[in-house]
């Protein structure tokens, strides 16, 4: 019996020739990540346990991105703690505000994570890096603390589900639409504890930004990881980025899957997920009368160049709807600069949108666009839980960048075709 990519990467990091779903392993970790919310707890645990030195200062990544540039005194104290720890432990991959961006955009962009890696992150969207062919999964702060000491993590080998996308993806759709559609089909616990292995001709035609958006939301189906086998798109992306040699891993032809889903997406509409769960995915046509107070374009899901280019193509030379607030957040400093050089920031500002420095900010109701009671936002972010972006009586609808930009022009949820005739 063959193995899946996920099983192969876990086996290779556990000193085993093969592993099976359900098996427990203590795996060697290539990269362990924490941010300004989760790392402080991990540092407290690490220091309270009397531990002195991290296992390898070159394998730990600390990114202040959630409440930074710090929004208040308490969050500034959290960042100060990480900064102190990073200095004392001589952490290689500590990046100060202004030198990084949103962790899950920054790590692949800088080649800190590479294909074939086993990555843990004290952030649920760590599964994003499956897009480059790495096994990457979200864990908690105590996992991070233990890993900082030992370089290892306990894992139960997940069974794999295979998703095959066929046909031709229509205009305006991307990785985000595919993942919202998928979660709509299988539910927010449809892949709970499992690996989502994603492939097929549609995926082969997606660029890395779209793949990252897709794998980013594997957690929203409850998955342990999402993963796409490295191919020539991956190889091209890694050129001049990978800080360590990439390892290309593919599933065996006789690998075992708990289920295989095959979908032809040729007739798929752009997807919108209604409050208050990502599984409430609908074709945009069914949402067209929903009026909006705010649109957010950004986040670890859709704050990359492809997303900004798509949004700018729709907003170019136009103004956003009266009474609406639009917030655009490039995900990293590199993306911010590139968007400036391509003239995208000018398009957003002339359309009367706010352009913010990279931050997770409004996605989790942190700052930079928090909602009041009764307000409704359409966002390219990843969660629409109760109170996610602010007041418990506010609402978040999820979509891709094209629908977000089209809706920014009308003030209600809008199919891009309607404004791009």
């Amino acid at each position: 019996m063959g193995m899946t990519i996920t099983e192969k990467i876990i086996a290779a990091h556990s000193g085993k020739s093969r592993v099976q779903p359900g098996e427990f392993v203590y795996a060697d970790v290539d990269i362990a990540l924490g941010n300004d919310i989760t790392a402080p707890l991990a540092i407290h645990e690490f220091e309270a346990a009397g531990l002195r030195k991290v296992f390898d200062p070159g394998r730990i990544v600390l990114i202040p991105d959630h409440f930074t540039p710090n929004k208040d005194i308490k969050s500034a104290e959290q960042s100060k703690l990480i900064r102190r720890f990073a200095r004392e432990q001589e952490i290689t991959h500590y990046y100060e505000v202004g030198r990084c961006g949103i962790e899950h955009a920054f790590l692949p962009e800088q080649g800190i994570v590479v294909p074939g890696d086993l990555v843990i992150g004290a952030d649920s969207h760590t599964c994003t890096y499956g897009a480059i062919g790495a096994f990457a999964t979200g864990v908690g702060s105590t996992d991070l603390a233990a890993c900082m000491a030992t370089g290892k993590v306990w894992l139960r080998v997940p069974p794999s589900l295979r998703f095959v996308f066929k046909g031709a993806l229509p205009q305006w759709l991307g990785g985000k639409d595919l993942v919202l559609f998928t979660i709509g089909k299988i539910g927010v616990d449809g892949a709970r504890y499992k690996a989502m292995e994603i492939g097929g001709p549609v995926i082969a035609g997606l660029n890395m930004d779209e793949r990252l958006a897709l794998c980013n939301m594997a957690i929203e189906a409850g998955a342990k990881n999402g993963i796409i086998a490295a191919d020539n798109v991956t190889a091209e992306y890694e050129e001049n980025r990978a800080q360590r040699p990439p390892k290309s891993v593919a599933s065996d032809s006789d690998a075992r899957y708990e289920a295989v889903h095959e979908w032809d997406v040729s007739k798929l509409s752009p997807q919108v997920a209604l409050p208050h769960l990502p599984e409430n995915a609908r074709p945009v046509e069914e949402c067209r009368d929903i009026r909006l107070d705010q649109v957010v374009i950004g986040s670890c899901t859709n704050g990359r160049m492809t997303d900004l280019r798509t949004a700018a193509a729709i907003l170019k030379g136009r103004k956003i709807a009266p009474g609406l607030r639009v917030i655009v957040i490039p995900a990293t400093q590199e993306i911010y600069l590139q968007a400036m050089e391509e003239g995208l920031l000018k398009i957003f500002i002339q359309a009367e949108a706010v352009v913010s420095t990279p931050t997770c900010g409004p996605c989790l109701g942190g700052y930079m666009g928090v909602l009041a009671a009764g307000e409704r936002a359409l966002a390219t972010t990843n969660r629409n839980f109760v109170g996610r972006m602010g007041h418990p009586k506010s609402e978040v609808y999820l979509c891709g960048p094209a629908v977000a930009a089209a809706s920014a022009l009308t003030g209600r949820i809008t199919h891009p075709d309607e404004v791009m005739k």
Partner: protein
Amino acid sequence: MRGKCWKFGDHVDTDQIIPARYLNVSDPVELAAHCMEGADAKFPKKVRRGDLIAAGENFGCGSSREHAPLCIKQAGVACVIAKSFARIFFRNAINIGLPILECPQGVEAIAEGDEVEVDLAAGKVRHLGTGKTFSTAPFPRELQEIITAGGLMNYARQTARK
């Protein structure tokens, strides 16, 4: 352990357990003051030490924030019984030593305010009102070892000493 149950539905996410606006601190006492606030704003005032939570499917879905099981533990909740747990919440609870049990039939039989008795080691939930007992599959040995040690850091320290 025995106690009174607070009942919650399916897919209670971590933003309901501890909204992100409170994550600018790591202090469990401050966090516990907002425990379950997104699901029931009065919960932090109502919950008493030794109470239990009985919840539906996929409890703790969403973010990796360990602040979620941490604030539940600090609020005095003795055990969370759910039909199922989201995976990061599950491992966080094991890692910090918050007792949890997956017991779908037990949850089905429990209403808010019911008193139950939980035997973690045996994996049994007994409804004190009806006298019915519900059994669950015990955790695998590897997890039992972490639980018995009182969490992952204790476990790591103990195994390092061996």
